């Protein structure tokens, strides 16, 4: 049981949520429970789901890499709800639990990750543990792997998902 009771799906405005519920059921990150909780605040359920979905499932940066980053972030935020969700799209693309575990572990010395992937995972790791190390030298290195739009995409994705994890962990949401 969560601290804020999820609204029954039948009570959600069909016009506003039908497509979003379908997307949530297809991607599974976030799942429909996120919508059912956020929908308490009119406008928030739609806007927050759209931002979560868009930053994760749409864009130029590899979705599976973002999925690893998202799960790794939960080791910092200590949120169990998002930690246990898995993107169906990433699984369909071939992402395995062992690769997720590797990404959540000592990724820097793991040869299965490219230097670009290592930079992106490190970006997320440092952001909320040692943000002062995310300095202009660090960004310069990132620009050797990613375009500026891709770095903005990654940064916004990390910031948004981490922020929502911090909120959701306090609500004791479980799947």
């Amino acid at each position: 049981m969560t601290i804020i009771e999820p609204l029954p799906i039948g009570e959600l405005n069909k016009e506003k949520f039908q497509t979003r519920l379908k997307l949530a059921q297809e991607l599974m990150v976030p799942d429909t429970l996120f919508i059912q909780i956020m929908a308490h605040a009119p406008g928030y359920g739609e806007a927050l789901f759209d931002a979560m979905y868009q930053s994760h499932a749409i864009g130029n940066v590899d979705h599976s890499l973002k999925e690893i980053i998202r799960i790794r972030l939960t080791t910092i935020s200590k949120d169990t709800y998002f930690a246990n969700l898995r993107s169906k799209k990433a699984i369909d693309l071939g992402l395995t639990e062992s690769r997720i575990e590797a990404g959540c572990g000592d990724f820097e010395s793991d040869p299965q990750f490219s230097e670009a992937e290592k930079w992106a995972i490190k970006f997320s790791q440092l952001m909320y543990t040692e943000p002062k190390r995310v300095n202009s030298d660090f960004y310069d290195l990132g620009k050797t792997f990613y375009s500026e739009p891709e770095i903005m995409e990654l940064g916004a994705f990390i910031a948004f998902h981490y922020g929502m994890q911090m909120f959701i962990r306090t609500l004791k949401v479980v799947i």
Partner: protein
Amino acid sequence: MRSASAKQQGLTEQMIDEGIEEYETSENFTEAEKIALQYSDLMDTEPDKIDETFYDKLKQYYSNEEIVELGAFIGFNIGFHTWFGTLGFYPMFTPDGRLVDQEESARIYGDKPISHTKGAIQRAMKGQKEEATGRIRK
């Protein structure tokens, strides 16, 4: 950066300072405002303290709708403030509303969050004075 809308509603720099530094003992905040401010503090620094008991207290003052609104707003800001902090950019405007370049904004606001009343306003006024003097010399 400050919300123009909040300023129009009467929010002052002194109230912001008080809300950051001493809201728990301040008489200028209601119990409802104090717990909302504490909610934001704890979510970033000691989230384990936001337990069922804390939410029960929060529910004495706010509806579920308002709690979701507050919590999402706080979470969003926790995520984005840290990221923006790494990007090294500064507000476009001084505390008194003057459009400045990034170099001057960095000089006014410094490299860490500060109270506007304890430096930024004075530095902005000094910059404005220098700018005016420069124009006279021209």
